[in-house]
């Protein structure tokens, strides 16, 4: 490991306060600099480590930028067809009900091609945890318009901005699944700054705890950036996200289980 070390004398195991979780391996992630996927992966992995469920969890990867996420997680994983992770996860959980199952999908995967699978898994109340990374664009295929692309937002297939009469409205999937009786916990979070990362991590923990208690589908949207697709530097993209994405996709809990 090449490093520029300052305060060498402090680097002792007893002083260690933060290091990357062992539930992620050492492969360099293929994501663009500053991409929220990496942070989202890491906090899911940290919660898996903290709950000590690494040997009991199966992850379902999507098609999209995070298609290769199984290259980074030290857990058993399956790679689903585009949009079908909730169907795949449904079967895994029903056949291995004592194990934990999570799906991880982007906006194109979860809210366009996989809308039916998303809604029906949530409506049946499949006892799985679904992560929904919403960056308002198709990142992997080169920045095309997504179901969540904002009005007026430019993409390679809405080069003059999303025109609602012509291209339809952006879809608030999280609000939609919050209406369904099968979901127990529905929340929208972000991972662009330390306080939001901490909040999101708490949400991930809650979601997996609810799964442990067989409470139904837990659904976490993470509003994220796409520096390449948005054609912005990472920090600039995060600022743009705060100013433009959050008003339309407001952060916070949409549904929380009643405390017993």
């Amino acid at each position: 490991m090449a490093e520029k070390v300052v305060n060498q004398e402090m680097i002792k195991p007893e002083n260690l306060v933060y290091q990357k979780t062992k539930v992620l391996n050492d492969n360099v992630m293929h994501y663009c600099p500053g991409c929220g996927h990496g942070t989202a992966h890491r906090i899911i992995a940290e919660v898996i480590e903290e709950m000590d469920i690494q040997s009991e969890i199966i992850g379902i990867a999507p098609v999209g930028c995070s298609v290769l996420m199984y290259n980074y997680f030290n857990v058993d994983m399956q790679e689903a067809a585009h949009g079908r992770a909730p169907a795949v996860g449904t079967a895994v959980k029903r056949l291995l009900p004592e194990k934990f199952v999570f799906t991880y999908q982007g906006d194109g995967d979860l809210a366009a091609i996989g809308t039916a699978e998303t809604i029906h898994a949530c409506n049946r109340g499949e006892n799985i945890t679904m992560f929904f990374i919403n960056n308002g664009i198709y990142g992997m295929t080169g920045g095309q318009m997504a179901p969540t692309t904002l009005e007026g937002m430019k993409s390679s297939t809405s080069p003059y901005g999303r025109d609602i009469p012509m291209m339809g409205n952006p879809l608030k999937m999280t609000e939609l699944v919050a209406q369904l009786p099968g979901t127990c916990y529905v929340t929208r979070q972000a991972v662009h700054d330390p306080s939001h990362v901490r909040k999101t991590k708490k949400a991930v923990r809650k979601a997996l705890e609810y799964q442990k208690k067989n409470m139904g589908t837990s659904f976490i949207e993470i509003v994220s950036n796409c520096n390449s697709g948005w054609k912005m530097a990472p920090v600039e993209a995060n600022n743009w996200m705060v100013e433009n994405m959050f008003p339309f996709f407001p952060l916070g809990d949409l549904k929380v289980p009643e405390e017993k």
Partner: protein
Amino acid sequence: MAKVKGTIVVDIEKCKGCEICVTACPTSVISMSVEVNGKGYPYAYLNDPDGCTGCSNCAIVCPDGVITVYRQKIG
């Protein structure tokens, strides 16, 4: 009151130079290098050995998990 002092270790070759840690640092002690790593990215480094409190903000926002944080009480 005991003062805390911290330091970070950046895995330079895995840093992609996104600068999100720079904005997350409450004491503004992280800078980007002038030279680049093997991938061609400038990388984050601690520019002030006395300014880091070991709060871990930089590490928890790092998308690539390249920052390790140490913290020690002094005095």
